[in-house]
């Protein structure tokens, strides 16, 4: 079974530019999550999809971040315009049954904003 895959693995952009991160969850997993780890800090929740619907987006830092999951399969996370403090590692995770199965994480996208 393929795991959660994320693309790209690394991205370096300049302040003010736009970046789109992609996540392909494990096939059959309705629940998809975005987390991020800023340097020296804990991994923090961003948002949670159930299929194509946003279940909880309380962790999204501001309106420069937009997550979508059209069709309930893969998800994208767009940062526009990027700021220096957006640098970090963005993790995607998916799970099968809500509350009864652990989250499986991808390897993350390391975003550097210069």
């Amino acid at each position, binding site marked *: 079974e393929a795991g959660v895959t*994320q693309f790209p693995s690394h991205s370096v952009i300049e302040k003010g530019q736009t970046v789109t991160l992609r996540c392909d969850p494990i096939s059959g997993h309705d629940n998809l999550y975005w987390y991020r780890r800023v340097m020296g800090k*804990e991994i923090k*929740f961003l948002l949670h999809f159930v299929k194509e619907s946003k279940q*909880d987006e309380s962790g999204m830092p501001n309106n420069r971040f937009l997550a979508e999951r059209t069709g309930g399969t893969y998800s994208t996370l767009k940062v526009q315009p990027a700021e220096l403090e957006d640098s970090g590692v963005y993790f995607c*995770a998916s799970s099968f049954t809500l*509350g009864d199965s652990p989250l499986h994480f991808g390897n993350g996208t390391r975003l550097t904003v210069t």
Partner: protein
Amino acid sequence: GESVGLHLPTLSVQEGDNSIINCAYSNSASDYFIWYKQESGKGPQFIIDIRSNMDKRQGQRVTVLLNKTVKHLSLQIAATQPGDSAVYFCGDSGAGSYQLTFGKGTKLSVIP
């Protein structure tokens, strides 16, 4: 949510010894706890989880202990191997919430 913290940022153990990684959580409403292992350049890898209606759960070479009285979680690794070297994160979520709250992690180094 409230933060979950780790007692020690680093831990070194001799190969073959048992490792114990500790975690304290602050949210008394948390009812689900989980341990992840993260190797360099990879994402967190699930190790073991436990619900608040249990105080102990065993897996292959790993045991998680939950003490709800003092809000303490620990991960025990038996016969630690070099491949166990990684950063270990604990996480928790509260009733009705599926947000995991993580600590900063403990770096485990296994001395051959």
